[in-house]
């Protein structure tokens, strides 16, 4: 095959991806990079405002509160999700009866719609007739309804729900990593007298390093970007206690409908918030990459 023909063929094969990337990746990016310097409510003529949107962002307490909430949400979710999904993967990687069924059960939340899951959890956790409170009150563990979704505990509740939804996904990735570890390493360690804990500590964990590095990176990005279940369960409330960055951004672009007066879309300011949000998530990912370099090396 001539080089020219090969080039033609390769270009043709690349074309769909290039078109999609340009349309769905590059064009929106350019759109945002332009509109963050404009005031634009979605109609009429956009007005160039220079850096006003960024000045507003730096004095916007609600945005910085949402950044703080995002760190709490992401931190809590990661602390629970990563160890629990690894533990589940290790257990379900062993010789356990019905392990395939259990793997499917734990993976199930990943394939169910987040909105549906969140509505179900709202029904479980709401204070006035939620199942959890009813059970706790029935057995006299609490005397009156506990405010699972109240200002003090809503963040904890949404973290628990997010963890429940994410464990199965990371468990599957850990399982793939575990199955790539050569079995003879465990056999020789056993012959040398290593117990299960030692085998986990000195074989499993180091051998999982590169996989774990990727999984944690994915988990960090997903946790920083997660807002869907929060939107359904609390809409960022009460009084902003569960407002995370991406939900804040979403509301600027798609204001939640209220019964009465209209709420305008803020595409210009929303673009500026989107840009800064992307910088924050990207920065954290970069820091993580730098700090987790050692995990990528298997000796």
């Amino acid at each position: 095959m001539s080089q020219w023909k090969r080039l033609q063929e390769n270009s043709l094969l690349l074309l769909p991806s290039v078109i999609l990337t340009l349309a769905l990746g590059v064009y929106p990016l350019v759109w945002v990079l332009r509109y963050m310097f404009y005031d634009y409510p979605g109609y009429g003529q956009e007005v160039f405002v220079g850096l006003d949107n960024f000045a507003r962002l730096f004095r916007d307490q609600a945005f910085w509160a949402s950044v703080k909430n995002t760190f709490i949400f992401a931190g809590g979710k990661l602390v629970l999700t990563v160890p629990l999904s690894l533990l589940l993967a290790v257990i379900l990687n062993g010789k356990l009866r019905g392990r395939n069924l259990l793997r499917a059960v734990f993976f199930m939340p990943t394939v169910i719609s987040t909105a549906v899951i969140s509505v179900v959890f709202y029904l479980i956790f709401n204070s006035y007739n939620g199942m959890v409170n009813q059970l706790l009150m029935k057995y006299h563990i609490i005397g009156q309804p506990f405010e699972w979704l109240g200002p003090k505990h809503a963040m904890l509740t949404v973290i628990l729900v997010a963890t429940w939804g994410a464990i199965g996904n990371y468990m599957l990735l850990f399982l793939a990593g575990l199955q790539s570890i050569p079995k003879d390493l465990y056999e020789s360690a056993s012959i040398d007298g290593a117990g299960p804990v030692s085998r986990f500590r000195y074989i499993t964990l180091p051998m999982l390093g590169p996989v774990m590095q990727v999984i944690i990176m994915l988990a960090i990005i997903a946790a920083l970007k997660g807002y869907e279940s929060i939107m359904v369960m609390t809409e960022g409330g009460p009084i902003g206690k569960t407002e995370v960055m991406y939900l804040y951004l979403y509301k600027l672009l798609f204001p939640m409908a209220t019964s009465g007066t209209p709420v305008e879309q803020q595409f210009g300011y929303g673009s500026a918030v989107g840009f800064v949000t992307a910088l924050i998530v990207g920065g954290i990912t970069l820091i993580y990459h730098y700090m987790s370099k050692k995990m990528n090396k298997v000796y």
Partner: protein
Amino acid sequence: MNFKKVLGLGLVAVLALSTAACGGGNADKTANNKPATGNEQQTQGAEQPGEKKVLTYWTDDRHDQEYIKELIENFNSTNQDHISVELTVLSENYNQSVDIAFASNKAPDILRLKSANTEMFMKKGYLAPLDSYLTDEMKSKFDGLLMDGVNRFDGKVYSLPNSGLTLRLVYNQDLFEKAGISGPPASLQDMVDAAKKITDYGKKEGIYGFALNFKNPKSAFERSVREILSLSGYQGLGFDLKTGQFDFGPYSQVIEYFKQMHEDGSILPGAETLDIDPLRAQFAAGKIGMYLSFSTEPGVYKDQFPTTINWAGALAPTLEGKQVGTSEIVSAGTWIGINDKSANKDAAWKFMEYMYADDVLTAYHEKGFGISIVPSIAEKAKNPDTPGMEGFLVGEHDSLWPVTPNITPEGANYGDAFFKYMLDGGDLQAVVSDLNARYNDALSKAVEKGDVKVSPDPSFDPSQLKAK
């Protein structure tokens, strides 16, 4: 490794920014107030005499959909102009669906309009002015009802009124009786006391005196504080009609009483994350003593949440127990509009004419789907027989109020700011000052841009507002 880093970061940036960009794609940025000029979206469907015309009609109303379907079937089978209308009932995200439809040239010919979206749709260039279609008969029928900023913008009419919503206190008569309360509260202090009595009576069984849909505080306050303030003689959205400036002072007085109910433990636990439908479900189950809402509630308890409790609607309490103003009739002034980019505008108008005929509007009122604000209809129509509707009917204490300018302030809206005070406390005067400063700043910018017009009326007297 460097390449991977750059790739990873790039990916994250694209994903994050794409979220922001998704919104913008929907907007018709070239559309402004100018009517479409030849570059119409649906040119393939241009009107030809004798040709069958299929019109699409989008609505987000669910409560009246069976009746609307019936009307459309009748129109389709009887009209002599070969017009066929197809109804699509959307639920949530109606405004976004309309945006997307216009951006992708698939917008409906006819749209349901509400006070919350008419101005925005008009500014985006979605709506056709109706002035050239209005006959003298129609002009006289709607005389005095066409309001600037509601259905008329820059002198052009974009929609016509049908019904409006009244706002009332909705209360459980059984619980009031059991708690030893003689009737609905006249003042806010009475309401605080009644909520406490009901809670004391029923807390063991999960019964509480008061609730609102605080998942969205702005929505909760717009169906409660708005009503309390307008009856007390103040504009219900924090705008001072005399000065043409925002002043949340009167609003804060109402909030103090709401805060008291919260501190008393009289508000249903979990109301912080309560949506309106779960609230209604709890009310229908007899767990809530009272709340405030629109005249849609009788229909809700008839069809959506049938209930055996005895309940009624009553005028909301006022700050001092005296009705200085009138209860504001809301969502009045708009019903149906025509897509400015439709190739079948004349046919759409024929359907509109049919929908605004006296018999249709009369039946709409009598079936309880909305309370007619058109005098010629309201005078002769019978009262709806929907249980509970008698408490919501327009009376001498109801009226339309002048329009409040719609602006978007920086930072938290008044709903979130006041709800934070309700739960967390703090310096209420500081909250009011902050809101006044931010809202008036946004107002002056909007006036400067020409987005809104403000006409202070120093002689405004709420006691002079009369029911239409």
